[in-house]
């Protein structure tokens, strides 16, 4: 099964307005590479920082993180900052 | 800039230093005597991080001039340890986790020591008002008040 990749609204203009995308990737890094290839405007957004929630767990940094084939949800959200 | 020679006693030791007439005691202590335990949090007497004693009285070193120390006795946090032994307040602050960042700790210790010398059995309210001139932004004061209570109890045993 190919997990759907959902995007927070502020990222959607970079993917021609789509709320979600079907894309096969085994890691966060591979997903980013494929996104940037398919949607060139995503490259800058990825550089600026995107956090990835896989089944609710938020990954900010590690692009080697595996995306399980049975992941129910992959959600791209803004990279956040703390105090 | 006119310099003045100041002869004073700090934590029991005779000390001499020269400073300009408009320099604060805090700057003299930190930059000329090399005692950096007293901290500058505000420079306006609002935070108490520079609390020291002048002839036994609690003052903000940032509101006293270096030249005013002449012929008088200064007590700083560095003088709390006696005969290599921590003061009960120092022991209890560590034991009760009464510090997080620790920048306000020297001022609290000097202020609390002054309180307990005057009032060996203060109530919680008396502790809170006696320490109201010392700001802490990390702890919410909870563990500080408990440490002072514990130290007071310990000191009364002796």
């Amino acid at each position, binding site marked *: 099964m190919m997990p759907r990749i959902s995007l*927070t*609204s*502020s990222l959607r203009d970079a993917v021609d307005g789509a709320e979600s995308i079907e894309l096969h990737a085994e890691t966060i890094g591979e997903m980013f590479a494929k996104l940037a290839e398919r949607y060139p405007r995503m490259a800058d957004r990825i550089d600026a920082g995107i956090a990835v*929630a896989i*089944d*609710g*767990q*938020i*990954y*900010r*940094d*590690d692009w*080697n993180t595996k995306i399980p084939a049975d992941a*129910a*949800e992959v959600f791209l*959200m*803004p990279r*956040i*900052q*703390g*105090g | 800039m006119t310099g003045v020679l100041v002869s004073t006693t700090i934590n029991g030791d005779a000390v001499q230093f020269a400073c300009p007439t408009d320099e604060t005691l805090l*700057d003299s202590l*930190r930059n000329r005597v090399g005692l*950096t335990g*007293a*901290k*500058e*949090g*505000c*420079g*306006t007497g*609002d*935070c108490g991080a520079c609390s020291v004693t002048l002839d036994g009285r609690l003052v903000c070193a940032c509101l006293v001039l270096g030249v005013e120390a002449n012929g008088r006795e200064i007590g700083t946090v*560095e003088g709390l340890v006696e005969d290599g032994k921590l003061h009960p307040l*120092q022991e209890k*602050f*560590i034991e009760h*986790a009464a*510090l*997080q*960042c*620790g*920048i*306000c*700790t*020297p001022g609290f*210790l000097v202020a609390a020591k002054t309180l307990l010398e005057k009032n060996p059995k203060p109530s919680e309210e008396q502790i809170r*008002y006696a*320490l*109201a*001139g*010392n*700001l802490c*932004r*990390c*702890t*919410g*004061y*909870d*563990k500080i008040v408990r440490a002072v209570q514990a130290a007071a109890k310990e000191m009364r045993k002796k």
Partner: protein
Amino acid sequence: MGHDTNYQDREFKIIGTRVKRPDGIDKVTGRAKYGADAFAPGQLVGKVLRSPHAHAIIQKIDISKAEKLAGVKAIITSADLPDLTGSNRGMTDILENCMARGRALYHGHAVAAVAAIDEQTAKQALKLIKVTYKLLPHVTDVDEAMLPDAPIIQDFVLQDGKPSNIAGISTFGHGDVDAGFAEADVIVEKSYKTEQTHQGYIEPHACLANVSSDGSGELWVTTQGHFSFRVVCSTLLGLDMAKLKVTSSEIGGGFGGKTHVWTEPLALALSRKANRPVKLVMTRDEVFKASGPTSSTSMDIKIGAKKDGTITAATAMLRYQDGAFPGIWGMLGAMTAYACYDLKNVKTVGHDVLVNRPKVAAYRAPSAPMAAFGVESTMDLVANEIGMSPLDFRIKNAAKEGTQASYGPVYGPIGIGPTLEAVKKHPHMRAKLKKNQGRGMACGFWFNFGGQTCVDLNIGPDGTVSLTIGTIDVGGSRASLSLIVAEELGIPYDQVRTNIGDTASLGHNDTTEGSRGTFSSGMAAIFAARDAVGVLRERAAKMWDIPVDDVVWADGVATATGAKHSNLPPLTLAAIAAKAASTGGPIAGHNEVVADNAGVSFASHICDVEVDPETGSTKIIRYTVIQDAGKAIHPDYVEGQFQGGAAQGIGWALNEEYIYGADGCLQNTGFLDYRIPVCSDLPFIDTQILEIPNPNHPYGVRGVGETSIVPPLAAIGNAVSHAAGVRMTHIPMSAPRILKAIDDAKA
């Protein structure tokens, strides 16, 4: 080496005990060295000249008189800081915030800086610098800055192709809120405002910079992240990163404000120009004027519910000011606003708005407290309308595993429900209240982060263990990390010492922010210790001349297993360390990890207040914090985080605010007029630590540092409404504001 980051249920021997922190003795004796406590031979004193105006073109800076003053060794303006950022917007903004480039953007914006032989000379030199300003119209209020005719702060910010102060609009949510509101029996809509507050750390920013003529340099600085300071400073000054060694001092409080550089690049530039060390310490006045406070806000909150208590729709329109440079603060408000609840239809919009105020920086769970104030106040209003207790109303709508968070993803196992159940059971909820007293409660959410982390663990020839970490210890984490290493190695706590390495001694570590210190360095310390155990077993095997598989490590000793080795007495860590030279050299463990997946955090607070109806003055009578820590490594310092966050929230709720005059200048730049809570303002703050293990940490640890500042604003607002019969919509709820509300209600 890959390590399993999953939670492993186990019995702990010393984790969870309340040991003495290793840096305690230095901090109670005055020996600990903070930012302003360093000295270098030949050091100069640095001072910064700041704009007296809110918004002005800098037409001319005449330094000729100041330069001639005896004892002045260097003067810099923006001309000494060419833009080397390669048009990276974030870096350019930092550069311009460090020193104005042709235009002063806020009262207190740096314009020039001097280095002189002493404080008096440096101050005199500042007076001799003549700056010619041409005043521009200014705006400091977030709502006014959004008006079409508002003065424009930054030319590069556009909305619909036109110059604007709205630097960002971020929308979150799901479902159909219009349909949801149509289903509601009760709808409450309310607008709120919160004023700007400062982190208020007691130690002002301070550093000692030393740049040599060969382009190498050292920076001693009070910071939450010396590695990120190195990245920023070396970029802005064009230094090789490896040639700039940044050493973190003890830090006298940060709360987010020391994640960001302010004067450090100026100190380095002065040192480079003077070719001498420069010590630069901000005054309290400068800290307030020019180091990042948090946003002031304006919000519209709307919540609809059925009579049975089910929320059918919720919206939040949030307007956060970022100061003079774009930030993500409105966005974070919009992400966190409804994160505690399970909502079918929700929409939040965060506006990031520029004004003539200092660049906003993170402040403990940045942006969440304000949104929570609006949402949690409105939650109480809806509960009242439908005749349900505010606690039951929250329990009914609490987010749970499987809930789609209002900021997007679906939650894994989370802990808002347990904190609410704990509120219900807490004796505080049943305590009797007196006249003019009222009780309130509220919930709070924060994300928590992990991030890049590495540690070195070295075993000395005597068997003592040194752990070197790269995350700054802001509140006792060295004790927690020593506990973790002692637990893993099975040795006494006193045998381990944790130190913070400088940027030359470890790989990059992210800043101590996002409640990550103990979570991430703790994870790395566990793995480094396990690596070391592997080495210790090998060395024991060599000493015994048996296969390593026949050696087990438990309780601090190597034991040979199997019948053949039953006569071998166990080898202690010290015994193995003593033979290290002849068995393969120094014994060490290392770990480099991206400690992602910190796990989100929830808290519920209960608060009793007493309001004096004659003066409007409010006193906190009792306060309880209930929060999930995953696993409390050192409970004292977890409680300390809960209490400290609550106290900051109490100050924000009742007293603290930036007050700007009609001239756009900040009027209360000292602790006398910007009044943070003092000891006599507060009661003991009760805490209840819940331990719901984080599935993504070997010990179950969650970040704990930030969440406790989120609920107090609303908890106190809700308590005041019960004590005084007035609903406060403007933070801080200072005595004059409450008195006015009471008087207005009578009229």
